[in-house]
């Protein structure tokens, strides 16, 4: 199994970091969590390492989000509503602005749609996504179609209307 995991580490590490980044929105944290997921895999030696890693990573990211929410309360650092993005042609937007807007658009998806989309983008197959999300395999196409449409629409709405959609 260690050799197998080494293989997965080589091929999947970046995808796992990306997947985590889109949940915690902190590059450093995403790397830390990805490495921790692999460290746990070294201990647990899961049968299907790749799927297992994404499950563990998703759980860690969720815990992280909860913890972050608690800490925000502690600090009474009450974050205002997401910054209203200014209508700007995409070509002129810097990477930060694009990222912010994609993040806001992803927030518009239902958790399940978002999860399916992020897993697909991380290189998971329909079977693997079904295994992770509990969706029927036959529903993955529909789920992804809806998620993609919503993502693109939410993103474009922001660029055209410049108005935030209520979260």
């Amino acid at each position, binding site marked *: 199994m260690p050799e197998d995991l080494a293989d997965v580490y080589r091929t999947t*590490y970046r995808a796992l*970091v*990306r997947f985590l*980044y*889109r949940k915690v*929105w902190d*590059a*450093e*944290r*995403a*790397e*830390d969590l*990805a*490495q*921790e997921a*692999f*460290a*746990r895999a*070294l*201990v647990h030696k899961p049968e299907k390492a790749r799927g297992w890693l994404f499950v563990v990573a998703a759980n860690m990211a969720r815990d992280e989000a909860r*913890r972050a929410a608690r*800490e925000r*309360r*502690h*600090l*009474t*650092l009450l974050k*205002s*509503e*997401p*910054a*209203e993005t*200014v209508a700007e042609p995409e070509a002129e937007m*810097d*990477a*930060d*602005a*694009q*990222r*912010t807007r*994609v993040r806001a*658009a*992803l927030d518009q998806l239902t958790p399940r749609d978002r999860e399916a*989309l992020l897993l697909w*983008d991380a290189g998971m197959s*329909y079977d693997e996504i079904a295994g992770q999300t509990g969706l029927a395999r*036959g529903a*993955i*196409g*529909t*789920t*992804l*179609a*809806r*998620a*993609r*449409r919503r*993502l*693109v629409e939410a*993103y474009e709405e922001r660029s055209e209307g410049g108005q935030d959609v209520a979260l």
Partner: protein
Amino acid sequence: MRNEAKGGKMSHFDDGAMHAYLDGELAPVDRAQIEAHVAECAACRTRLDEERGLIQRASQLLGFAQPSPPERAAPPPLHQLRHPRPVWRLRMPLTWAASVLVALGLGYYARGGMEAPRATREVALLDSPDAVATAEADAVSRTAAGPARLAASPSRAPAPPEPPQAAMEKAREPVLVVDGNIYGAQKDTDRATAGAVAIRSQAERRAAAPVPMADVVVTPARDADLAAARGRQETTSWPVIGRDQARELLGADPVGVPGLAVREIHSPVGNSMVLVEQQVDSATVIQLFQRRAEQPDAGRRVVIRGATSAARAAAPDVRGTERLARFVGSLRVEIAGPLSPDSLNKLLEQVRPIP
């Protein structure tokens, strides 16, 4: 997966089938069906192209949501991951607060002063009565306990001061800068949970390249603070005033971040608020909204939200940004600017009267 029209004649496919087809996730039988249908049905060919475009666009958008730069340093070899790191690590605002506390203490220690109350007065106290506040209080008491206590703690003993320039070039080292003195800091934030006295997190050190300034490291804003920039345009229409006038309005010297050039001082008509704008670099201006505090409560720091604060009322268009506020002497000071809250927080901590 597909709708059968009357008589069993194949009809159009739904989105799900199309996406599964385009994703290469249809079984061969289904794939053949869809291809046969699309060959005959112009409408479905068009739709298929549309869905293909949608998939590409969604994938492109997700591509924007990557850590920058996307290709970071190679991860450590797998076998080095044997010791899982603690999941929990101090988040940045807390770490900032802790590092400021330590830095103040060390700075105080280095200067050999005996006026402990002054050091504690400058310390940021958080509102929360829970663990965070306890940690802070712990740190405060360390500061107040004076040099002996600090010196007795080996992990926090200050490194010998270095010239600022040399230290800035070691941007990846954890460095604390206070009053021109620079101290190395312990890297290991994992133990910080206990005392909340360490130091800048790894995350922060490896975050997007810090911009060295006069005596503070500012990390670029993560979320686009365009709103803040727009808010600024509003307030720059306020009349420009001189320092004497500002002093008169405030009943004290206006405050600012030492070492940063004061760009302009504004004040809205009919209002005793003073706005000091300081240049962080050629493209970045921070704003310090200040007014006489009704109830001076030195050292207390709050985060403003909503329309109640005077500064917000005066600049209502600043949305989506946090306003950090602090009392400095007899003034209540709020900071705004296109920087991350952590950077603004750090800058706010440095605010002093500028004669």
